């Protein structure tokens, strides 16, 4: 018996690195899963079932409203919303154009705002059925401490952290729990992009050298996998976490417990 049996979940960025792992885990736990993303690249099937694809641009209010209407028609309620859609611009503020800045906020912050806002009627239906509904936002350890050359990204994640606490205060009395996951380094296309980006790509070191340096700086001597993050998302989505709300859950292999900084 899965931990999410009978629950309905929507995962934004559901075709991306971490979002895909979350969808697969939710399927394994018995949930009905809507994988929302810009495009349906790759298979929606996992050994435990198939996600239902929802075309979604989180920066567009009509697109968000259409996606929620679709979920309402198909499932009637929403128990779990995971706001995993996100982008990362690897630049300092000096290099960041206003357009890039606005796009970062549109996806990472406005997207979280829009999907959460328009999910509320469906989440209240799930919560009124006796169990709590759970919104899980994606913050980042970069919302607490900065990585070089990630200015807009760091700022968006700080905004998501504050929004998470505010939503928890406002909607807790309706039975909706709100938390944010704050991953450290996780092996995803986004991390791959970081290795080849301006921040470290100019060092002339091989990718494997950079990856080993990154492993070495973690107390757990490894960076995370999407499954590591999905494990915590699954816990926060489940009824076991019924007392967890308003928190920022850092999962980073011990990286930010130490003073030492990355030496790439």
């Amino acid at each position, binding site marked *: 018996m899965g931990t999410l049996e009978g629950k309905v979940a929507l995962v934004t960025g559901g075709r991306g690195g971490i979002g895909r792992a979350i969808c697969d885990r939710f399927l394994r736990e018995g949930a009905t899963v809507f994988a929302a993303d810009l495009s349906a690249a790759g298979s929606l099937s996992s050994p435990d079932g198939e996600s239902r694809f929802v075309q979604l641009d989180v920066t567009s209010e009509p697109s968000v409203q259409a996606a929620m209407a679709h979920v309402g028609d198909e499932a009637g309620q929403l128990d779990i919303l995971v706001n995993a859609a996100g982008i990362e611009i690897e630049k300092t503020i000096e290099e960041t154009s206003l357009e890039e800045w606005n796009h970062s906020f549109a996806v990472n912050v406005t997207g979280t705002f829009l999907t959460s806002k328009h999910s509320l009627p469906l989440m209240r239906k799930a919560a009124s059925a006796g169990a709590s509904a759970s919104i899980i936002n994606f913050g980042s350890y970069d919302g607490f401490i900065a990585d070089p050359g990630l200015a807009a990204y760091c700022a968006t994640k700080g905004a998501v952290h504050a929004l998470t606490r505010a939503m928890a205060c406002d909607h*807790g009395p309706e039975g909706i729990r709100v938390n944010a996951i704050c991953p450290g380094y996780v092996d995803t296309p986004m991390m791959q992009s970081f290795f080849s980006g301006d921040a470290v790509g100019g060092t002339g070191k091989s990718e494997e050298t950079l990856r080993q340096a990154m492993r070495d700086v973690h107390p757990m001597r490894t960076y995370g996998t999407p499954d590591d993050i999905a494990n915590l998302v699954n816990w926060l989505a489940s009824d076991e976490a019924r007392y967890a709300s308003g928190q920022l859950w850092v999962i980073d292999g011990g990286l930010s417990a130490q003073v030492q900084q990355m030496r790439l």
Partner: protein
Amino acid sequence: MTRLAGKHAFVTGGRQGIGRGIVVAFVSEGAAVTTCGRGPRPDDLPETVAWHTLDVTDAAAVAQVVQPMDILVNNAGVQVEKTVAESTDADWEAVIGPNCRGVFNMCRAFIPVMKRGSIINIGSISGQVADPSMALYNASKAFVHGLTRSIAVDHGPRIRCNAICPGWINTGMLEAGFDLAKDPGAARNDAIARHPVGRFGEPEDIAAMAIWLASDEAAFASGQLFTLDGGMTAASPLNPGLF
């Protein structure tokens, strides 16, 4: 479920409250559990659970019970409801002894014999924000938080170490806090209104997180403080809705 099958756990302070909740939850997940307290074995402790009568402030006594463990939960703790000016030397010993020296004694003794494992310390929201008239307790929990990070950094990747920071949990400790109020009933209602989830926590809520942190699912979680407080500290203490 058996998420902790084959694992051996040592939980300090298993007589009552959060510690007992963790002991019971670990047993139901298939772990072999050893627990301890300063008094004799409680009559209602499940038969399969091993008991040591142990004062964790006594390093020599701790050394007597050391054995290889997969999971160590440092839950034993004491609170004294006083300000700094009111606190006596005896209060210092009563609080700092178990909450700081006790956690240190246990970690120092068990880390060398744990091949791989997860240490879970019970910190508190009081280590992050101060409860009034709880000076030594607040400070002792900040010590636990700092020690947690140090163990994660120094003893990873062999040992993962995290702290759970409970908010207001329905235990004897919570009752003792309300007994300080002029009107305990009104204080209780006011406190519940400050929780976005609309209730206090139960030991089972904390045990649910302890199971996760003890399990292999938490393989990438280390060095962190995980707050479980029903949303209370996400809100400003100045809560205009309550005026």
